[in-house]
């Protein structure tokens, strides 16, 4: 019997509400010290990824978010048996605890912005054409022509990046005011100006949304995507020492695990 993992939560208590996960299997919490890992049981190998199974997984995580701080586990994570799971929990306990503490009462929000790259480039070319003096003046040999074309392209790309930086900086000032942490990616494609995730405290959610609405109203030629609240998929950080507990730390930890905790879910596994 394998265990399908949904997330690590900041509670060792059983989940009060009935939650059903992949293939309608009952979801329960396997406690480890003062935290727990939420799982369901799975008999057969995982089928192909479908929209349905992704949504089932996500629905469980969202259900948990309502009552707990959740470290979401990657979709399709399976562990063979309860003993392996407890051993993993033991190895990474410190990291799980640190992350749960850091991410308590915080959610992740995603913001993507598409800008009209073609028009922006067109304007840059017009401006650069006006500033003829900045253009490279070389002879007419093929290699000189090659360099001239490359240099023109280099100037356009450089200006394009500078404009992207400027827009992102302005947007980020507004969003960062209400965010605890952020991850920003610029120009993943020419059109996708911004692909960012922000970690926002629960009580700042409405301020963050207002900041987004404000930004949205300033540039109507840009396109926006706002998503969330998500569990902090992009903000779970593991230390380099993960899994390297000393003997005394391991004994300390195991002493905290009660006999009852060792037996949760043991009937069927």
């Amino acid at each position, binding site marked *: 019997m394998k265990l399908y993992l949904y997330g690590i939560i900041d509670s060792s208590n059983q989940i009060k*509400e009935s939650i059903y996960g992949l293939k309608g299997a009952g979801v329960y919490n396997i406690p480890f010290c003062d935290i727990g890992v939420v799982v369901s049981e799975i008999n057969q190998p995982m089928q192909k990824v479908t929209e349905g199974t992704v949504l089932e997984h*996500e*629905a469980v995580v*969202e*259900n948990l*978010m*309502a*009552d707990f701080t959740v470290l979401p586990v990657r979709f399709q994570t399976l562990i063979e048996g309860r003993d392996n799971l407890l051993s993993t929990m033991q190895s990474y306990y410190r990291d799980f605890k640190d992350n749960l503490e850091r991410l308590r009462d915080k*959610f992740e929000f995603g913001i*993507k912005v*598409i800008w009209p790259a073609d028009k922006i480039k067109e304007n840059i070319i017009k401006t650069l054409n006006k500033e003829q003096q900045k253009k*490279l003046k*070389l*002879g007419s*040999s*093929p*290699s*000189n022509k*090659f*360099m001239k074309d*490359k*240099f023109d392209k*280099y*100037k356009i790309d450089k200006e394009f990046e500078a404009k992207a930086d400027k827009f992102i900086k302005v947007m980020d000032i507004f969003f960062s005011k209400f965010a605890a942490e952020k991850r920003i*990616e*610029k*120009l*993943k*494609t020419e*059109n*996708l100006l911004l*692909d960012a995730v922000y970690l926002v405290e629960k009580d700042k959610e409405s301020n963050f949304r207002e900041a987004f609405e404000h930004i949205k109203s300033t540039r109507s030629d840009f*396109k*926006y*995507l*706002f*998503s*969330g*609240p*998500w569990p902090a998929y992009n903000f779970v950080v593991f230390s380099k020492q993960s899994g390297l507990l000393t003997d005394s730390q391991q004994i300390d930890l195991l002493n905290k695990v009660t006999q009852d905790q060792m037996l949760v879910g043991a009937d069927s596994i």
Partner: protein
Amino acid sequence: MMANTMVETESPEEFIEEIEKAQNGLPKKIDANPKTVEKGLAKLVLTLIELIRKLLEKQAMRRVEAGSLSDEQIENVGETLMKLENKMEELKEIFGLKNEELNLNLGPLGDLM
């Protein structure tokens, strides 16, 4: 109780298109199938050469911009880069590779292509 996660946008198709484009980099696994191993390796090697070629080109442009190259040096660099680019085109054609297939995610620096 659900946490009410939502995705709000007025242009879903455009975002799907851009996200798909952004994910079309190198595959996460090297295709080591016996029938395609030659092409797989060529793709990997040419991607690395393309990375170096682009770095060289960018460095040359920076030096041109800073005015630290004479006209003669610019012409020499131009000839070298032009030959390198032509050779790359030939190799891509031999192995049936397209530009977008020689992509590399450079982490915080973005994609190569």
